[in-house]
């Protein structure tokens, strides 16, 4: 058990008060989604390399572009792109949720649970819709 600092000790070396970290709390949906928001953000950060690679290849020429198409069309590439799509949509919907919270709305227990669940379900649904459209309507990557 962590020692409680009651502030009764004296002297200049008394440690500053700190807040407890994650492992002390029981996981809740809002908390898990907050962590996922940060993880998807970090993943998208490095995912920008893929966008840059794709654009540079398109600007370089047909051969370079064929390499990107080959990678994106491979099983690994498809898995990365699928995860990237979900991470992007989840981070976007999570961001909208945070913007709603920034206006001091949606903080009631039922409301915040509903908003958080909507983020999760919405991101999965939109990802699936986008990929179904991508494959059925546009013919998928080639």
């Amino acid at each position, binding site marked *: 058990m962590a020692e409680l600092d009651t*502030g*009764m000790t*004296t002297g200049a070396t*008394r440690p500053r*008060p700190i807040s407890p970290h994650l492992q002390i709390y029981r996981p809740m949906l809002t908390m898990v989604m907050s962590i996922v928001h*940060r993880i998807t*953000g*970090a993943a*998208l*950060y490095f995912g*920008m*390399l893929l*966008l*840059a690679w794709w*654009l*540079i290849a*398109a*600007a370089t*020429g*047909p051969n370079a*572009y*064929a390499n990107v198409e080959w990678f994106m069309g491979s099983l690994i590439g498809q898995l990365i792109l699928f995860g990237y*799509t979900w991470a*992007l949509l989840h981070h*976007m919907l999570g*961001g*909208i949720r*945070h*913007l709603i919270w*920034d206006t001091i709305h949606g903080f009631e227990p039922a409301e915040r649970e509903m908003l958080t669940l909507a983020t999760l379900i919405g991101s999965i649904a939109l990802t699936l819709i*986008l990929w179904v*459209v*991508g494959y059925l309507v*546009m*013919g*998928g*990557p*080639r």
Partner: protein
Amino acid sequence: MSDAQPMRTPLRQIRGLGSARSGTSHFWHQRLTSVAGVPLTIGLLLIITALLGRSHAAVVQILGSPIVAIVMLLFIINTAYHMWIGMQEIILDYVHEAKWKFLALMANTFFVFGVSLASIYAILKLSFGV
């Protein structure tokens, strides 16, 4: 109780500062870029979906057309600033030792400038076709 050290830091020590020495401006800029990021992300997804399965020549032509190129440029510039602030926030949360903190902050800046300027250059080259 009266001799307890006050928990509140004197305001003058923190005004305009914070771990990154820039106060709350990043907090506001992160909201600004997130609002802009919503329509731009939708635009990016629409563009990529529309380009699926197309030949290189068609992709080059579409990416270089003004509306598409402008949306792509706005997305990249907006995202670059958003992800720079976001990664800085993550670094400041987890990297506390001064040396590693500033190395990580530098790496963040280099990464964001490198990736975004490369993307911007590619779109400009596609647009102007030189």
